[in-house]
């Protein structure tokens, strides 16, 4: 959407083909954004307002069937039987959330009180119900970092980048809602790569008493009272550790997803080993695909935060504009 806006501003005629009922992608699923707890509505509304002023068309609930390049033009066919001609194509298919059921040892969808960070995000809204039993809030909560990331068993070797800070953000939000709860984060490494991320981590320790334990969970099991027994090694003291918690939050990573995989096939562009789309290089051509005239924007190329995605989308627009000026 951001790319479409910028390209419209530059005087191009843009059509957005959107698989879902409404645009916005995964932004529609979050409540507050790290690292400053900005309500997502603020960002979404501002973007939507900006977008609604622009003159470009959106085809909702539509998927691309095929793209063929002939005489320098792209012929696009959609699931709605529409046919277009375009000078350039931008792939912005985004990512999918890792399906935590694949880490069976953590018991997602098997045990009652194992949820993902995506589930928790909805519960963090003011009317979200955090109770684990009638009228009973969780007293002890554990977060598991790197679920579906940095994990050969899930088939994902890469780091999803945003889960560390999401964990810190959600831990603070939970503590604000449930001041009496003890909150633990089980991590392998904490990658506070962005602006104000490290500060938020420090705040979590200093102001909110979030406990960080360095060790990867090996398994969780449900007790008869529906609480969960989790096992990890406390690697810094070098001893196995077990703990009973009332709620277990899995910080799920990002995957390229079906949309991106099928976009790669339709556009005949390559994927990295991670499944995300291959860019020509990582520095100067991070919006270029292997095919002339097909550009890439956002988290279809790698795990990205909301702000990184917006920036990448804008740079895609600039690259498309430059390319069109030169080639069309």
């Amino acid at each position, binding site marked *: 959407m951001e790319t479409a806006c910028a390209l419209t501003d530059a005087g191009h005629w843009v059509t957005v083909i959107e698989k879902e009922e409404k645009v916005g992608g995964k932004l529609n699923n979050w409540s507050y954004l790290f690292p400053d707890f900005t309500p997502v509505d603020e960002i979404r509304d501002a973007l939507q307002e900006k977008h609604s002023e622009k003159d470009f068309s959106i085809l909702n609930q539509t998927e691309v069937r095929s793209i063929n390049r002939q005489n320098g033009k792209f012929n696009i066919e959609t699931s709605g039987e529409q046919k277009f001609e375009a000078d350039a194509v931008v792939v912005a298919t985004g990512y999918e959330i890792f399906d935590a059921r694949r880490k069976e*040892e953590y018991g997602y969808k098997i045990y009652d009180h194992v949820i993902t960070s995506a589930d928790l995000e909805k519960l963090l809204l003011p009317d979200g119900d955090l109770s684990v039993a009638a009228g009973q809030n969780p007293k002890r909560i554990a977060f598991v970092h*790197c679920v579906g990331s*940095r*994990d*050969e*068993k899930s088939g994902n070797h890469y780091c999803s980048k945003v889960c560390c800070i999401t964990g810190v953000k959600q831990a603070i939000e939970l503590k604000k809602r449930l001041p009496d709860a003890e909150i633990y984060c089980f991590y*392998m*490494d904490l990658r506070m790569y962005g602006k104000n991320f490290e500060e938020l981590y420090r705040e979590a320790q200093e102001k909110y008493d979030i406990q960080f334990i*360095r*060790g*990867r*969970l*090996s*398994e969780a099991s449900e007790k008869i009272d529906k609480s969960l027994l989790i*096992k*990890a*090694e*406390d*690697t810094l003291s*070098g*001893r*196995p*550790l077990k703990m009973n918690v009332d709620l277990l939050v899995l910080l799920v990573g990002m995957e390229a997803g079906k949309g991106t995989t099928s976009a790669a096939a339709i556009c005949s562009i390559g994927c990295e080993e991670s499944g995300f789309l291959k860019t020509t290089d990582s520095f100067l051509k991070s919006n270029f695909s292997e095919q002339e005239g097909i550009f890439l924007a956002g988290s279809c190329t790698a795990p990205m935060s909301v702000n990184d995605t917006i920036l990448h989308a804008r740079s895609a627009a600039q690259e498309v504009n430059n390319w069109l000026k030169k080639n069309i």
Partner: protein
Amino acid sequence: MKDFGFSVIKQRTIDYDQFDGRLLNEVLEMEPSFKVCLSCGGCTATCSAADLVSFNVRRMNLLLRRGETVELESEIQKCMLCGKCMLVCPRGINLRNVIMLIKKSILKYKPVNS
């Protein structure tokens, strides 16, 4: 000589210049998957032996990389080779093979004066 109760205290510093990497290199050559350990401790968390005795399979990596051959030799005796650690390992390391390789070669490389 009269014993005054004093002794020379062994330096605790890891003297990396004295590091003998032969055992490590041999293990890594035979089992290259061992290069990529993240030290996450998943292996130790699920270890059948670690619940009962002070055995820490994650530390095998560290002992090997720091040349602590003497401690390593006694530690690996505690492993029962059940292989649960391999089911958990996020980096897919064949830990059972690592233990077997150490067992096989450690006597060759153990310091003589130990």
